[in-house]
């Protein structure tokens, strides 16, 4: 642990790389500016516990303020090329977004208790707003982020949002159209036709999911700007299909491993019915946790790498992301174990080390230096511009 206040007489000196991380980051590409994360677990613990305490005491109202402080802490401790980021979000906008999301979620889950058709109807009712919410939420986060006193921007319309996520509309539509197996009253015999009909929405979701991830990332970057400089992303959708194909194989393998393990446990210990269930009770969740972490880390790291490595800013800044699935999985698993062992008190530590690893794997290369970017004159909102003044500012990333 180092102290950036002591290490740097001024912010000029970039904070030294805090790579005491568990996984050594990949070597830097030549002439690249590394990202650093300088957050400290001990310091963040104080912020986290106060956030949590005030959130519970205020019955959740403070959570919006807590989120802003958390984001400011993580942005403010993320450095590149001698400067850090800042977040300017207005907690009231976040509170509005949370109340909205909570109401929708409550309606959906309540309906889900009764019938999938009613739940699908509610989802269909909310769906028309989703492209708009997506775009607003990207805009909220971009406009409220700054680097070197220049804000990021995001401008896209409803149609852009719709083009990215339209396959998601197919799923509830199919649930409504096709005959369904009611969980409350499953039929005695399931015909092959009914089986396929019931599975079709899930299959459609699986087939289109990589497309949606690809297009959503594309939307976020292609319509984003830093000051007046446009971002552009050239990742191809087929690359996302590659990632999720491997993830599907991993999931299948994990499922196979778990069934084999269950078979072995109950086969070997069949005589002692005392130990087999206990063994299964502890071993199977452990395997499940590891498999979950591996798949999650794999898709997380690969998607981030593909997105960053194909992103350009104004044609002259390029990014290099070298996240490794194995290192990330190790971090996720040890995080989970540490959180359980500490009854949750190590959550801040887990969040900090994950952020540090992610920053340590990211570089940017810039021909011509980072000094020459200009503010967007058309919609000049400097980092000091206090009010965004938009009544419809919502933030949906819970």
């Amino acid at each position, binding site marked *: 642990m180092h102290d950036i206040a002591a290490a740097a007489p001024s912010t000029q000196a970039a904070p030294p790389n805090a790579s005491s991380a568990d996984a050594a980051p990949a070597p830097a590409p030549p002439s690249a500016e590394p990202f650093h994360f300088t957050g400290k677990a001990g310091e963040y613990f104080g912020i986290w516990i106060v956030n949590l305490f005030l959130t519970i005491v205020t019955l959740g109202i403070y959570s919006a303020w807590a989120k802003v402080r958390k984001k400011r802490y993580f942005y403010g401790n993320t450095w590149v090329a001698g400067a850090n980021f800042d977040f300017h979000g207005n907690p009231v906008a976040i509170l509005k977004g949370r109340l909205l999301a909570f109401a929708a979620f409550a309606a959906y889950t309540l309906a889900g208790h009764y019938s999938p058709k009613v739940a699908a109807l509610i989802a269909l009712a909310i769906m028309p707003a989703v492209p708009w919410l997506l775009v607003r939420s990207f805009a909220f986060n971009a406009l409220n982020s700054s680097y070197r006193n220049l804000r990021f921007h995001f401008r896209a319309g409803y149609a852009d949002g719709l083009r990215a996520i339209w396959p998601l509309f197919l799923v509830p539509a199919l649930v409504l159209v096709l005959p369904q197996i009611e969980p409350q009253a499953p039929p005695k015999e399931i015909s092959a036709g009914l089986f396929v009909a019931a599975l079709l929405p899930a299959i459609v979701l699986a087939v289109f999911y990589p497309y949606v991830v690809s297009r959503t990332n594309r939307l976020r970057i292609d319509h984003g700007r830093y*000051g007046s400089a446009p971002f552009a992303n050239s990742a191809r959708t087929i690359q996302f299909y590659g990632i999720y194909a491997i993830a599907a194989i991993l999931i299948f393998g994990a499922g196979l491993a778990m069934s084999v393990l269950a078979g072995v446990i109950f086969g070997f210990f069949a005589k002692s019915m005392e130990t087999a269930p206990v063994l299964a009770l502890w071993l199977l969740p452990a395997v499940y946790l590891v498999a979950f972490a591996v798949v999650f880390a794999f898709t997380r790291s690969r998607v981030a790498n593909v997105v960053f490595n194909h992103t350009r800013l104004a044609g002259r800044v390029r990014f290099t992301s070298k996240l490794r699935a194995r290192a990330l999985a190790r971090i996720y698993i040890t995080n989970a174990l540490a959180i359980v062992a500490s009854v949750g008190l190590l959550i801040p530590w887990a969040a900090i080390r994950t952020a540090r690893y992610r920053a340590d794997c990211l570089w940017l290369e810039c021909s011509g230096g980072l000094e020459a970017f200009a503010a967007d004159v058309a919609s000049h909102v400097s980092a000091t511009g206090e009010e965004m003044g938009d009544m419809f500012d919502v933030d949906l990333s819970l």
Partner: protein
Amino acid sequence: MQRFEADYFDGRSSGRRRVEVVVAAGRAVLRGDGVEAEYALEELRVLPRLGSTPHRIELPDGALLVTQQAIDHALPVPRSSSLAHRLETRVGFIVLALAGLVVAVGLGYRYGVPWLAREVAFRVPAEMEADIAREGMETLDRHVFKPTSLPAPRQKELRSLFTQLTTAGVVPAAIEFRDGGFLGANAFALPGGVVVITDQLVALLEEDGRIAAVLAHEIGHLEHRHGTRHILQDSIGTLVIAAIVGDVSAVGSLVATLPIVLTHTANSREFEREADTFAYGVMKKTGRSPRLLGEALAALERQSESGGQDCPVPLEKEEGGQAQAEETKPAQRPSRAGQLGYLSTHPATEERIRAADEAAR
């Protein structure tokens, strides 16, 4: 006179310039790297600090000063804006918040959530509960139960016994007879007012007094709306946990559902005790001894010890709102007292028998 060095960002470009700020006589003078500016101190806005991230000072023309140096003596840092920062960095308050959090979560779980669930549960319309019960019954009939083989006169006897017991209560309730299938000797209370008793349990308990005790216990579950309260308590708990672990990965959240499983079983035990207490009252009111409940439990316990294999959930008296769902929850599976004791949903049988004896005195 105070001076400090800072990075200067003009807000029009991403260029960074290093300046020296001299604060004297109510004014701040910026100089260096082509910057020459002077402001009155009240024009500067020092942003609230966060951890050891650098100080940020907004200038009236849209420019920004960023410095890691101590400026607290040079510039007026508004006290109200840094309240959160002061709390977050003071060890005393952190310890206090931690203790307060433990107390708040503990009390919330012990009293707050159960109270809220109870308040809501008693406001749930009866028709809605009846819907849940009907669907639950249909599922059980399809997958578990077989039609009863109790002779009609015996059914009639037990029905009138049940009516005696329910007139002592408030909630209208009906009784259903079924062959328990693989659930064996068992009794259930479905929210909305249906009590199911299996043929196997009728045979096992032999005497009407004991059967009455078990039925009274199930009516207790209905009176206290335990099924609906269970669903509500679990949902509220999940929301609280989601708020706490909001900033860790999905893997962390997965692990964090563990407390829900554990508190779910603790709540179950609480509910069993409530239903037992209700049963003692009904038994006394109808001129029977609460001891009979103890006898019934002892009979169930004996049976589970001798022939546990063919009767996997012998002591499980499902109070469940969603009987069909609760049946498969792993936490409820291992219900043999002693083994995996902390996961057991029912208080130890001996303890309940003792309580019944005490109530009889």
